[in-house]
């Protein structure tokens, strides 16, 4: 803290400097106003500058790179407009990776929301040892996607019956051989299977969000509804669920942007393989394997845009509802 202290005193000294013993009243009023906002600004300045440089500055730098002709480490960075952005769409690999990311997102977000909501509903109905269940469901979140990926890579191994391991071996032993499948190695629906470990990992978190949402509904409201003769089902339908909308939206945003940027889970499960290619992996390969900075930056910009499409409306909505509140 000594640093910030120094900053404030410095600020005070600066504002005191121009003022001689007694100025005209107008000046004094201005001085008072400055005294009101300046210390706050000075306190915040380091983080504003840091965010300005390291977040927005680098985003700007990245976009500039994406608009340039720097397709090798030594190529000159001439401005080429949107060429890199349009070219990407003529590539089979890019389109495939976008399809993969979308399929993954749909299954992951829907799966985690539904499962999380269901678990929260069950816990809300009152269950013995609720704390224990809560902890058990939340635990997977403490594991990194890398660890999850390595374990699930083994669980979802698609080897045929005689060499089966993991879930397929379990199915065969239980006489449910027909359930054994290719998992993420399936050409068309593989990414849906890839979303299963992600759902497993994040459903507990969504459950905690929803549980908090359920608990946020005042008991009086439920009581009032019951007094009015509402059945338990109706209490949920008309009183509790409408209260969950903001939470659902928040969960959707959080899951959605994890999903669009997914990288670690894919790399741990499959590495750099086209069969599970997503934009983040493609970007990494372009930058570090192919040494093509402009293409990497272009993919990064598309990913930023995809997340922005999700987050910006949410931010606007939050700001508006805060103002209203």
């Amino acid at each position, binding site marked *: 803290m000594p640093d910030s202290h120094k900053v404030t005193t410095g600020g005070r000294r600066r504002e005191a400097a121009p003022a001689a013993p007694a100025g005209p009243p107008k000046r004094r009023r201005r001085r008072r106003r400055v005294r009101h906002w300046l210390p706050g600004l000075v306190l915040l300045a380091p983080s504003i500058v840091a965010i300005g440089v390291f977040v927005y500055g680098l985003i700007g730098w990245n976009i500039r790179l994406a608009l340039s002709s720097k397709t090798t480490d*030594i190529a000159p960075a001439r401005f080429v407009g949107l060429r890199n952005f349009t070219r990407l769409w003529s590539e*089979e690999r890019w389109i495939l990776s976008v399809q993969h990311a979308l399929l993954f997102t749909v299954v992951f977000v829907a799966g985690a929301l539904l499962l999380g909501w269901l678990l929260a509903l069950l816990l809300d109905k009152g269950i013995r040892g609720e704390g224990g269940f809560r902890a058990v469901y939340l635990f997977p979140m403490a594991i990194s*996607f890398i660890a999850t990926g390595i374990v699930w890579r083994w669980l979802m191994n698609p080897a045929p019956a005689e060499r089966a391991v993991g879930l397929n071996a379990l199915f065969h032993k239980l006489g449910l051989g027909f359930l054994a499948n290719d998992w993420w190695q399936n050409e068309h629906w593989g990414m849906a299977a890839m979303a299963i470990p992600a759902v497993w990992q994040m459903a507990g978190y969504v459950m905690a969000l929803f549980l*908090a949402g359920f608990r946020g509904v005042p008991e009086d409201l439920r009581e009032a509804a019951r007094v009015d003769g509402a059945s338990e089902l109706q209490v949920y339908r008309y009183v509790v669920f409408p209260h969950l909308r903001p939470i659902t939206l928040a969960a959707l945003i*959080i899951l959605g*942007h994890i999903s669009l940027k997914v990288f670690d889970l894919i790399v741990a499960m499959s590495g*750099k393989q086209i069969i599970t290619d997503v934009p983040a992996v493609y970007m990494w390969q372009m930058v570090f*394997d*192919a040494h093509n900075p402009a293409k990497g930056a272009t993919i990064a910009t598309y990913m930023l845009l995809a997340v922005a499409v999700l987050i910006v409306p949410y931010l606007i909505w939050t700001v508006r509802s805060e103002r209203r509140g």
Partner: protein
Amino acid sequence: MQRKRWRLAPTVLIAAGSLVLAGCGGESKPRSTGTTGAAASKVEVFSWWTGGGEAKGLDAMVADFKKKHANIEFVNAAVAGGSGTNAKAVLASRLQAQQPPDSFQGHAGAELQDYIKAGQLEELDSFYDQNQLRSVFPQQLVDQITFEGHVYSVPVNIHRSNVLWYSPQVLKEAGISAPPATIDEFIADLQQVKQKTKKIPLSLGAQWTADHLWESVMLASLGVDGYNALWKSGADWGGQNVTTALQKFAEILKYTNTEAASTDWQLAAKDVVDGKAAFNIMGDWAAGYFKELGKQPETDYKWAASPGTDGVYMWLSDSFTLPKGAKHRDAAVEWLKECASKEGQDLFNPQKGSIPARKDADTSLYKDYLAWALEQWKTNKLAGSMWHGVTANNQWHTDIDTAVGLFLRSKDVGKFQKALVDAAENDAG
């Protein structure tokens, strides 16, 4: 009570969520020690040799180096991670910041082109002349690592890419008496294994092992001259000979294991020594791995040149370079001399499980597979490995990998060849 406590939770949880996200970007730092300090008394060497035989080999070479140069402190700046993926990213940022190590490891050949073009490497022509390296390395090797008339690295070892590993038990069970000598015999044998046994005919790992298989099939189908010609600028990738090679590759893929993408080269190679698979085509680091597993050559596994490539050594090599602006240039040159020396190479290679690039190695040090490899190295024609960095620059290499990956999905030979033609046009030279 409990309900009330949970009312605060959404905010906390959302905040926690963003923290988790923020925490995802962790990056590992190189194990390097600072480079400041007295000049010339130190040499910082960057590699990705951090474990197993390769680390032991490096240690043996370093010990010899210290004996010869007591006044030079050796700083091992190795970064862990298979085939240098992490190391290369760390190296890229150091080179960009103009803080190069005094010498760094890289696959000899076209993989170094990005560094060369960016002016980050010193050429070593006079170093080669002073140390008579042009006569101790095979002529073809020096030719194949020469870029626009200059050499830029010193090969420490030679690995072989085109090796067929097979299980004598499984072959016997399938009624196959000798390893296949041509691609067509190979396909017939795969068919026979499939019909007569329940074993995997050809075990394969993740996508890059298909790239590795691909280069062996290309070499076999096109012949050594045809293969080598592919990597010259203006080469014809659209011809019928390439189409035929790709069709054979497609045919061979039909006999691979379904779980290939879920495994990696170790498990694929292990299937052979465990008697679960008949064949595997992998580089000769597999021999080192089998030794680690305690498997015996001749009984648990045997090897031959990959089908159709007998008499050709598809090589790859780890080499050391001299970056421009190295802080301890003189010490780095001494290190390169160690790497090029007979003693250095004979200390490093038996541990690493590879053979020296020099022709005058002490043959008594190399046993089993390595004895065979050394013999072949002296007599074979040479072809550079595409996948392991000899013939294709980084961009080309990535584009071929993408083409192979898409082909594994689509199995469309026409599209595959078109992608290869485009890649050669865009990236060659």
